[in-house]
């Protein structure tokens, strides 16, 4: 009994969760690109594509459920399968945040940006990079790598605080910026949440690798 079919399906599920993560990282970067360039058509596509991410998440969960019900995985296999279910759920929520950022572009409409966007794209780059690395750490079953990725959340948090401070100052100086500044705060918040959710993914990687659940983002995520 070597469980070839089971192994194949488990590997396929791992690959699918990594591909889903790549789609979410891509959506995050495109949403912020659309925001930076005020590209409504791109924003529209990112928002529409989120439906596809949701469908893939549901399909993935269905396959996990089937494997749990029919194969009774245990030990390491069980931890991997459970991690896939958790990671896929976190990815779906990250996708929602990315779509939320994209929809802000549509809300801002033709209005010019109240400031050039510097830190928000940096947050998107950081969050997307963290997401990609967390999934590579998952494939590598590398707990140390996952912890290091989760630690990068502090940089995103610091940028988020900076963006807030800057936007507050703008609003105080010129109350007519309040509406758009609020949207930009939401965008920053969405990206900060994506990075928080990546720390959840990192926690699952540690769980798969070590069998222990560690809180890598105390009080958050």
């Amino acid at each position, binding site marked *: 009994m070597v469980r070839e079919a089971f192994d194949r399906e488990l590997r396929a599920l791992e690959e699918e969760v990594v591909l889903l993560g790549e789609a979410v990282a891509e959506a995050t970067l495109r949403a912020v690109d659309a925001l930076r360039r005020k590209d409504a058509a791109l924003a529209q596509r990112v928002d529409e594509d989120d439906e596809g991410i949701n469908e893939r998440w549901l399909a993935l969960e269905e396959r996990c459920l089937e494997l749990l019900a029919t194969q*009774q995985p245990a030990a390491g296999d*069980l931890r991997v399968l459970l991690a896939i279910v958790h990671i896929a759920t976190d990815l779906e929520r990250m996708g929602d945040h990315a779509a939320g950022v994209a929809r802000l572009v549509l809300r801002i409409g033709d209005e010019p940006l109240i400031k050039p966007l510097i830190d928000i794209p940096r947050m998107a780059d950081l969050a997307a990079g963290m997401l990609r690395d967390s999934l590579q750490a998952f494939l590598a079953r590398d707990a140390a790598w996952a912890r290091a990725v989760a630690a990068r959340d502090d940089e995103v948090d610091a940028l988020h605080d900076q963006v807030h401070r800057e936007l507050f100052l703008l609003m105080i100086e010129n109350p007519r910026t309040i509406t758009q500044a609020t949207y930009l705060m939401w965008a920053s918040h969405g990206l900060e949440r994506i990075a928080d959710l990546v720390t959840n993914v990192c926690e699952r990687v540690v769980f798969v690798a070590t069998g222990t659940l560690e809180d890598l983002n105390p009080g958050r995520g």
Partner: protein
Amino acid sequence: MSEHVAPPVLSTRKFSLWYGSHQAVIEVDLDIAERQITAIIGPSGCGKSTLIRAFNRLNDLIPGVRTAGQILFRGEPLYGRGVDPVEVRRRIGMVFQKPNPFPKSVFENVAFGLRINGFRGDLKAKVEEALARAALLDEVKGDLHRKTGYDLSGGQQQRLCIARALAVDPEVLLMDEPCSALDPIATAKIEDLIRELASSVTVVIVTHNMQQAARVSDYTAFMLLGELVECGPTRELFTRPKDSRTEAYITGRFG
């Protein structure tokens, strides 16, 4: 099992057993915790049935069997001089893979052990108590003397054998693949019963059904090629085994 404060009911200390020149059990150190369910799992030929049989000296009857090391029952050597195997088997009962009722009435099946042990109390009450503990009384109450063990279904026969073992108030109940001849519903009934029995008796169950071990036991011991590879709380062993051989076995990579 170090987390258990109570001393173990049964312990093996570097216990080995040979059938002629073949060593079936190799220096096993295992503690069986009181009123807990310990499952022994492992592939065919790993020595799990041999070990459980050693716990009530059933291997004594097999020619060419030799042992080394010790099995302690409440701290006393089980294989010591002057230990009466019949008394051992009263205090440590056994239920086998295939139900083996006697071709006698349900009542006599359960009363048998009591009679040979010279029981002098209320035989009827004791038999009914044992049948109730084995969750069989309600199904056979009107037919105690009319039906024989052979008139019962497979699952009922197995519960009858459990009642027969329980009638003499054993401290430990050994079960060697007790459900392997039963259908899923009869199996579920026995598993429920095993969980209930653990409040009053220590249970050691040998099973090749890993899901059964995971469902019913508090502790699981994994044996391979005569050796004890790993023993620990069942929930730990099935989620984060320490030994890669345990991992390979319970995830179905071999066996």
